[in-house]
């Protein structure tokens, strides 16, 4: 009798599903009449979107003076919200690209969903650098296109790198998402019974017909895109962190920023995927595909990246002391005890303590608990960006120029408004596009593997080979 237990890999799709039932389960959401609840949710989402447009309009009319920025603090909620939304986006690319390269088949249930979240989150993020420049009508100066001054962008500036990084990230994420969608749009085209849907889905599926000669190139393209998106997603938040790290402000000028930002981005992104997934799978009855096993695996990733973030917080403190730089030491002590200590301790509680609960199997498989933690994590990550941005600017080298920063109502309304944009886009996605990668989920069913059929073409469910002298653990969440 060994002390080790054999843990069987849980089935990726629960329930008694075959290819046709998966197709029906997913496409029915798009093909049946719009439920009333969808309109009820669309209403507040559109109202918030209107609020966003109104606050942007007022900002352009009146200028950035409507925000709470003051003399030392020239970067406020705009950059905080930008970093926060971009960070959330990272989970989608991690799920679609990095987990694909690691052959994590469980990603198929959530990748479509998470990639959609990425795209909408990056849209929300891109608003802020766009509008915060003051003179939005000359925003094209950030691009290398000829202008009346005959000047070109400064390629030594991290802010310019950001323009290239985030716009490339958005474009590549969109392409990756669309490539994944094409076969599923073809499924919708073939399932649709009315002319409008047949033409609409038909146009966007580009004439896909499931040819295996096409799949052959398609799989190659998907793998290459995953290989390209992996360094890309790591580079994006690295470059976002350069916005801070390349300057010589105390608390910003550190080499730990790139890995620490990337870990934080994945941490908050997975939390956002969970928040959305837990609601959506309940509403649309997708619990057979987005199972509790998925939730548990994502919680483990949250725990790992959350611990990395916690480690980074401690490392920053240590290096501040070890560097011997007065200003560096002072800013870290001020963060924990100074005027923004309240924000610092919210951040510590949400980001360092809350993910540690997931060491307990009972808690990380509990849906309600996961939902609460997923929201707590994103509150914490917002405050992390607040602490980094505001404390370092408000209390830098010269105490005589220190000032306290408070946002105005317009800061808050713009931020709340971005949830309207996100919500509107997400509801449109749920209504009109397949929320689960149908073809990919079918490909990980045991019925998809030709080896599970005998020579007469009869299906035999695979039998798990259990090593001798080993006890078998109870199946997870049976």
């Amino acid at each position: 009798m060994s002390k080790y237990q054999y843990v069987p890999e849980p089935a990726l799709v629960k329930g008694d599903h075959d290819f046709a039932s998966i197709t029906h389960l997913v496409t029915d959401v798009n093909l049946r009449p719009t439920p009333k609840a969808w309109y009820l949710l669309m209403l507040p989402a559109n109202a918030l979107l209107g609020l966003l447009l109104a606050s942007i309009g007022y900002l352009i009319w009146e200028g950035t003076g409507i925000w709470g920025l003051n003399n030392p603090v020239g970067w406020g909620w705009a950059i905080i919200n930008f970093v926060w939304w971009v960070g959330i986006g990272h989970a989608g690319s991690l799920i679609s690209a990095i987990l694909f390269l690691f052959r994590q088949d469980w990603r198929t249930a959530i990748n479509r969903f998470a990639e959609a979240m990425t795209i909408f989150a990056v849209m929300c993020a891109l608003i802020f650098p766009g509008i915060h420049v003051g003179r939005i009508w000359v925003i094209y100066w950030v691009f290398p296109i000829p202008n009346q001054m005959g000047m070109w962008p400064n390629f030594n500036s991290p802010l310019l790198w950001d323009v290239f990084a985030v716009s490339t990230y958005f474009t590549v994420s969109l392409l990756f998402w669309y490539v994944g969608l094409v076969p599923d749009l073809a499924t919708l085209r073939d399932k649709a019974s009315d002319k409008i849907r047949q033409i609409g889905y038909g146009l966007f599926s580009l004439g896909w017909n499931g040819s295996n000669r096409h799949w052959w190139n398609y799989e190659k393209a998907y793998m290459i895109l995953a290989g390209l998106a992996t360094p890309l997603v790591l580079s994006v938040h690295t470059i976002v962190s350069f916005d801070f790290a390349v300057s010589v402000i105390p608390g910003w000028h550190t080499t730990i920023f790139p890995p620490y930002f990337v870990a934080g981005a994945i941490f908050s992104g997975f939390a956002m995927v969970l928040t959305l997934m837990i609601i959506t799978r309940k509403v649309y009855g997708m619990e057979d595909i987005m199972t509790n096993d998925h939730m548990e695996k994502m919680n483990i990733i949250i725990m790992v990246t959350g611990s990395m973030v916690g480690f980074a917080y401690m490392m920053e403190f240590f290096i501040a002391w070890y560097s011997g730089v007065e200003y560096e030491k002072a800013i870290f002590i001020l963060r924990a005890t100074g005027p923004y200590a309240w924000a610092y301790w919210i951040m510590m509680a949400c980001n360092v303590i809350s993910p540690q609960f997931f060491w307990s199997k009972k808690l990380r498989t509990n849906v309600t608990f996961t939902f609460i933690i997923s929201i707590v994590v994103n509150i914490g990550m917002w405050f992390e960006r607040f602490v980094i941005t505001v404390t370092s600017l408000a209390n830098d080298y010269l105490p005589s120029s220190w000032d306290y920063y408070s946002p105005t109502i317009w800061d808050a309304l713009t931020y709340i408004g971005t949830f309207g944009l996100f919500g509107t886009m997400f509801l449109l996605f749920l209504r009109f596009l397949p929320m689960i990668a149908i073809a990919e989920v079918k490909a990980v069913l045991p019925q998809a593997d030709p080896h599970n059929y005998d020579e007469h073409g009869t299906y035999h469910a695979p039998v798990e080979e259990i090593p001798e002298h080993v006890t078998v653990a109870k199946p997870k969440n049976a």
Partner: protein
Amino acid sequence: MSAETKKMYGILAEFNNPRELIDVSKKVVELGYDKFDTYSPFPIHGIDKAMKLEKSKLGWIVLGHGLLGFTAAISMMYFMSVIDYPLNISGKPFFNAPAWVPVTFELTILLSAFGAVFGMFFLNGLPRLNHPLFTIERFKRSTDDKFFVCIEAADSKFHADQVHEFFKEAGAAHIEEVYE
């Protein structure tokens, strides 16, 4: 218009599972047909070997685009910051290679991704508005739960009777002629 006056595109056979599709693909290749294709709702493990598909050329397209992105980024920055309008920014060199890494990297990735996506559609002959197979009502299930093989009339070895016979022996669930 009667079936006789239309040009035949090929003969389509329907199968129920991926194993049958792999088996029949092997036989089609053995018989020496080369203008044929198989259709399935998802990519099937091992079908490339059964159909004797050649390695996809997509990698070369992506490499070409990646190199183009790399070169374009470096030349753009060199032209703008060294030749056309050099600016002295805190005494840094005009050709500031380390600072140019992020933009070069991003443009290389961007162009490679364009190469991967548009190259894939180009190799597949997509987008395409119509296809003879779309006239077949049953073929709609090729994106749902059925597996199809079509031997095309353009194949030099194509004889309608022989193909019918072959599919019947192979155990096809349904056989249908496709016209353009």
